[in-house]
């Protein structure tokens, strides 16, 4: 027996992109918060910006993959919403489309959250 039933796993794909956003957000915030609270120096801060830049790229790439999979599930956009037929096919198309939209939102949100790394370079308050 597994901890997650199969249904949850398939519903899970909907949440992949926002979860990546959440992980990226926490990674940025916690790393910087701990670094600053522990009195980290300026040179390490530049290093930190670099590493978190890498984390950001990784997050964006993951979301892009999730978006691609969703796009595939949505039939590469060959059909239009609303996907409201009472069939399993329509349900899958809907899921694909909703996941694609969520991936787009998460992508933008990751970009938003990464912007401070460029704008502010130091621990000052």
């Amino acid at each position, binding site marked *: 027996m597994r901890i997650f039933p199969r249904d949850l796993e398939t519903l899970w794909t909907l949440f992949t992109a926002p979860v990546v956003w959440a992980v990226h957000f926490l990674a940025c915030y916690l790393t910087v918060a701990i670094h600053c*609270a522990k009195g980290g120096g300026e040179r390490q801060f530049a290093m930190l910006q670099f590493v978190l830049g890498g984390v950001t790229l990784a997050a964006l790439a993951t979301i892009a993959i999730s978006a691609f999979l969703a796009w595939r599930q949505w039939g590469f956009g060959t059909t239009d919403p609303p996907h409201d037929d009472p069939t399993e096919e329509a349900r899958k198309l809907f899921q694909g489309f909703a996941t694609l939209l969520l991936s787009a939102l998460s992508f933008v949100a990751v970009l938003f959250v990464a912007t401070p790394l460029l704008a502010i370079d130091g621990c000052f308050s």
Partner: protein
Amino acid sequence: MSSVEDRDQTPISTDEEERQLRAVWANPSGWRYWTSVNNTQIGLWYAATAFLFMLFAGVLALLVRAQLAVPENDLLSADFFNQAFTLHGTVMMFLFAVPIFEAVAIFLLPPMLGARELPFPRLSAFGFWSFLLGGVFVCGSIFFDAAPNTGWFMYPPLATDKQYSGIGADIWLLGLSFIEVASIAAAVELIVGIMKCRAPGMRINMMPLFAWYLLIVAGMILFAFPPLIAGDILFEMERMFDWPFFDAGRGGDPLLWQHLFWIFGHPEVYIIFLPAIALMAMIVPTFAQRPIIGYSWIVLAAVGTGFLSFGLWVHHMFTTGLPQISLAFFSAASEAVAIPTGVQIFVFIATMLAGRVIPSVPMLFGGGGLVIFVVGGLTGVMVALVPIDWQAHDTYFIVAHLHYVLIGGMLFPVVAGIYYYYPLINARKLSDRMGKIAFWLMFSGFNIAFFPMHFAGLRGMPRRVFTYPADVGWDWFNMISTVGAFVFATGIAIVVVDVLRPKHRQPKGEANPWNAGTLEWISEPEENWGVRSIPIIKSRYPLWDQPGLRDDIAKGRFYLPGAVEGYRETLVTSVLDAEPIQCLRVGGTSYLTILSAMALGGVFVAITFHWWIITALCAAAFLAFVIGWLWTGTAIPPEKAEKDVGLGLSLPLYVSGPASVGWWAMFITLVGDGTAFGSLVFGYFFYWTIHDDFTAGLAGPGLKWPLVALGLFASAWIAMVAARSVNRGHRTRDMRVLVLCALMLTLLGGAAALAGPLLTQMDPTEHVYPAIVWVLVLWLVSHAAVGVVMQLYCLARSFFGRLTATHDIDLVNVVLYWHFLTITALTTLGVIGLFPAMR
């Protein structure tokens, strides 16, 4: 419809079926009426109670406005004023805004999903009684001059200062913890109900948007409320036993509370806002007379907001002196959350433009609410920019902002919902004329009251001031605000009168007066059964697209048309495609729920006043009632394996594991529980972060005992997993032996976990380090104790033949608990034992 022919072979007549159903679903009469557990009933009580609390908090707000009408007023004393605004915020947030949606959801969801009943009606009843008792306790305090007076955010050290805050702070902490229990109970009910109890055919792309929103909101409650519960625990430990979590003198930090409070507090805003928008998503298509455009966009917005709302909490802490870059992350997320919020408004406008809008009172309130909400949203975008917040924070600009958001985004849609859904309660519409008068009074009164506050705030008027001097230039703004507040209140009074005025002379209206397309409009106000028979759904707007549906449902031509065996039954379906998988027997009328709620309420009240003996007695009573409730109401082996539910379909009456609703409820509860635990662990590492040496040179629990405890807990887990599998192999005796072994191992594990801090004599009042270690250990040990009770319960069930090889719900769910307990043990013991050693 081919299904209709199939049903004709059933021997029982439709009248007989209806008689059966009515008998099974009837509410008891006389005083026993209050032991009802039917969700439709509970939903109404819940909504009425929440509304009364709202009126109470509204009166407090009017007192506040009266005091502030003129400078240097002495209508209210400073202390009463502080109690009044604290209680106003607390009651509006905890006793109105969140509960009203649990209420509306519990009331609407069964017919909307095409279900007889949500899966845990007794849990809903328990939640309602907890809410009522806790709410009366918190509100009543102001009549004894003992209300909380430190603001609804309860910042320590002001709120931990017993001389200042008196018993009010304890009433806040314990009363609201009690209500949070009710909220989490409702979240469990809603999630499982929406995922597992939809009518066959209602795939996730068919779900009414209201259900989508509520699913997300319930999930958010699950992650947002537990951090506050964890904070409450730390807070009460400091107030009651002097454990210095927020005392800077002994290594604590007041900021930890702010983090925990706002990790709860910001998602809370969206927990309040999303269900209101959900009502709009039901109302707009009805009055545009077309399906919503952008169904997927709404789902995107709901899920996206749900996630992003957890990345905003520090924007309440922009002035605490955290590094600017930390603030900037939260500023960025706060701007990002405006995107999904905006999408929803454009979806509504697009739907209106693509249809033909019928003017009506619900649309008036809905549209007016949006106009107000947009102002709040835009000022939100402003104050999410850190520099603007440095000026605007804690001023009347924020008071204006939050009321524009909450009243526009929540109260107006709720009133729209009252006007829209009232026919489902009483089969009659509310008055159009009174509705319009109420709307214009509320809309103009609101803007007169709150728009000037933007200017007062920018002119430097801070929040939470009981008076202000005449020469600072705030007097006119405040006078206008007060006048507006009373106009606004008049509007609300008219709504109240419209709802309460006797309507028996008014003729009963048609069943679906607005010609809505969604399923809740098949509900019959006089009946308790949710739906007469459980339909097959083929559209998002079945009443528009499935001709004859109402008639077929009412004639019992679908699933479960009767109640032959005399049980309350509903269908359980699969999560994604809603294929029927079980016929679930739900709990019926019971006095155990009300008694459990009273006993638990007794625990919280008694702790407030430090009556320890009464606390223990109430806790024992609570345990007894809950066990009685579980024993008589859950996992009962049915008289037969399967049942014919109609239309030629036969479904099992008993399933265990992930297919069962009980497993899901356990899983969801444990996710919430795990979040609270995670918050405590966050506290541990928070103290590590802010101190150079967070142990302050004090002895820790050592490495030996935590590792011993870890081994014991792991063995107990293995024994439990083994017990589950031997039970399936019909080896009942081996199962009992294994469970007994696991029980002993758990007891020993708990003792070993306690041994660490005990033997090194860690004193939790000395410094925050021993205090946080003790809290983690006590959390683990108390969960182990609950686990032991569960093991004893399983053994008893086995001896009484209620737990067998094929009927193993209890054991499977307890093993699920054990998975979580083992993770808790691993984390706790690793953190307190290994982490200090690794540094």
